[in-house]
């Protein structure tokens, strides 16, 4: 069997994360990973990236001024609705 190049292997690695590989792709990737430490690292590291992306959080807040403006917009709609 022909060994796939790293371009193809990394492409399959990102498909693999979504469980979208066919049986023959799984075999091709498996064989490639045995011999290629760079692609093994790519696999491990992109796994970390996807996992941490889901956990991103922010500590920023709206300022009181921004909240007041949003409240004004809401009030305007509320008034219109009551007047309808």
């Amino acid at each position, binding site marked *: 069997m022909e060994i796939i190049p790293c371009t193809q292997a990394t492409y399959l690695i990102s498909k693999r994360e979504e469980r979208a590989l066919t049986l023959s792709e799984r075999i091709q990737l498996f064989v490639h990973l045995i011999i290629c430490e760079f692609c093994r690292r790519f696999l491990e590291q992109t796994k970390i990236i996807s996992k941490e992306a889901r956990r991103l959080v922010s500590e920023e807040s709206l300022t009181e001024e921004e909240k007041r403006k*949003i409240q004004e917009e809401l009030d305007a709609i509320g008034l219109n609705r009551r007047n309808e």
Partner: protein
Amino acid sequence: MSWKEKAAPQRWVENFSDSLFRYAIVRVNDRETARDLVQDTLLSGLQNVSSFRGDSAEKTWLFTILKNKIIDHYRRSSTDKIVSFEDLDESFNLGDYFDKEGEWNESARPISWTGSGHDDYGSKEFHEILQRCLVRLTVQCRAVFSMKYLEELESDEICKRLSVSASNYWVIMHRAKLMLRRCIEKNWIES
């Protein structure tokens, strides 16, 4: 309906605006856009308040509205700059990563992240770098990556909502991961 939760829009800003804002800013990475999304969410919540059935918590209901607005935002910002997702972004060059035979260029080879005191991926520092690298992705890559890993949509749903073919979806996702991984390595390990 009396035993169910009733919407209390007069307290939305006070109770939910900060958590909606934090959720949005991570995903759109721009303070002004995030604030506008929160405002749009609350306004559309108010306009549709009669459809709030109290089956879910008010907060969950508002977050559902926000999530849809964020996905619309991705779709809009990505189609603003390109005709369609069938036109892959030409600024990306696979030759930056691989040689003609498809093997890693020496300068692009992934280096080991372990054993260098750099394995605290849950840390604030790592998350900040990830966030900065996400912003630097091309619009196409950012939309696809964010919808998959931040909004956690299935790939066929993403293809549908962005009108992108399955094969282009995989090409874009591959590019996103190549770019992100390298950007993080540069800032996390090499710096």
